[in-house]
């Protein structure tokens, strides 16, 4: 039941309470964790871009990865689920031009995802499944600065943004840490800080919790819940998407359900059984 180009227009969800006021966090915070996660609930206005897929086809290695996908993504938090090989990650990568459609067109706030990929990437961050593939420099602060340099920020602005992004995720003390000494969860937070430092309007998450333990998974969920940026999340972790605005179910490169989380996830569970 593909919904085509229908755009869901709903009020954005209310801001969640500060992270540390929630019971689960109080229980799970370890003494070593910096207690300033609440900065993620800053009073920035919520932002979202309008991402439009128009009859998009993608053929990779002779196989159809996306087939006639038409979607308009404008909500604040959107989940994408589906079995392995269903086209979820391809759909996500196509938004920032990492995958070229073989048919149709994708625009992000009116900009073409291929022809204007650089401009699209300036406002659309991407968090990959394995942070080790995303982190380029061996020291945390240096790695955050890499993305900013690519987008033309000067040294002073870069330093300020690096500090602000680390503080926002409660890892301000990580600036001089060596990447290979961090845990998987810490690396994922560093990778996310690198994305957020650019001040994107949208962050694309490709299975962000697949390599995280429960504590770090919950921590990422908290970040997702309060971040003002639009979040589009590919996940097998269905609980993560439970309070999202919208969930899309993919199967064999096509959208087979597109609805509120409860209904979309019910469809997914039924089809996956």
């Amino acid at each position, binding site marked *: 039941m593909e919904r085509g180009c229908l755009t869901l227009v709903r009020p954005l969800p209310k801001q969640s309470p500060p992270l540390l006021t929630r019971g689960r966090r109080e229980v799970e915070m370890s003494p070593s964790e910096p207690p300033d996660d609440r900065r993620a609930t800053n009073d920035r206005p919520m932002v979202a871009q309008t991402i439009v897929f128009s009859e998009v086809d993608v053929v990779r290695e002779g196989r159809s990865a996306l087939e006639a996908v038409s979607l308009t993504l404008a909500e604040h938090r959107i989940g994408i689920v589906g079995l392995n090989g269903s086209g979820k990650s391809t759909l996500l990568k196509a938004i920032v031009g990492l995958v070229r459609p073989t048919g149709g067109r994708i625009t992000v706030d009116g900009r073409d995802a291929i022809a204007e990929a650089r*401009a699209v990437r300036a406002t659309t961050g991407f968090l990959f499944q394995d942070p080790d593939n995303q982190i380029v420099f061996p020291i945390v602060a240096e790695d955050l600065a890499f993305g900013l340099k690519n987008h*033309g920020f000067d040294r002073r602005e870069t330093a300020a943004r690096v500090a602000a992004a680390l503080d926002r995720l409660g890892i301000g003390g990580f600036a001089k840490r060596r990447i290979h000494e961090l845990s998987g969860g810490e690396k994922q937070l560093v990778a996310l800080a690198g994305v957020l430092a650019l001040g994107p309007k949208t962050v694309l998450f490709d299975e962000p919790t697949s390599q995280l333990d429960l504590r770090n998974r919950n921590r990422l969920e908290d970040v997702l819940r309060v971040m003002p940026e639009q979040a589009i999340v590919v996940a097998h972790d269905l609980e993560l998407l439970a309070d999202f605005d919208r969930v899309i179910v993919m199967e064999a490169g096509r959208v087979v359900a597109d609805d509120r989380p409860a209904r979309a996830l019910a469809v997914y569970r039924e089809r996956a059984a």
Partner: protein
Amino acid sequence: MIDGIGETGTTLLHRLPAGGKLAGLAIVATLLFFVSNPALLAAALPFGAAAMLATGRPPAVLLHQIAVPAITIALVGLADLLLVDAETALVVVLRLAALLAFAVAVTLTTTSAELADTFERALAPFDRAGLVDAPRAALTLTLAIRFVPLVGQEIAAIREAQAVRGLAANPVALAVPLIVRILVRAERVAEAIDARGFPPPRPDRSRSPTSPMGGAPSPSQMPGDLHDHP
């Protein structure tokens, strides 16, 4: 092994500009190359050791840094001893040992970002002449530094998996999956680097970015995409 990850610090070596340190290392390396008197080469060793100690790092860290290269130097010396003669072996070992000491001193007091910046600046004239892509060359250097520890982790993971399946240590059995893993990772890293906006805008296109939300540059400020993604 030299992990190539210098840290910020307060010693004299830390405060020296990265370009100066690298130029000094290049000069020392050149001089050592032309010296073939064992006594002179041996005299360089205490200076190299002093340079290492001047980094302010504990001896254990210094030993860790030189352990693997020292074994390599010993093997090279052994090969020279067997294939050439004892004097040549001595000269080669002393030369490489002195060079290693100075290189470790520079590496430990220069961050990878400083190294990459210096490398990029040094290549800038060639970049302007269209002979080299300086940002890409600097990124290559950085990636080599960053991913050395990860290759070690890949090797350990493959060995563990093979041991569990009863396979004894075998260089060929290790090399094949290692190469495959490295190639797969290389593709994913390349994808991530693209997503992070590399390459940076050329100098003549640079600007001071601002946006309505205090975030990324506005689309109108961004140059068109220069990549063609398959």
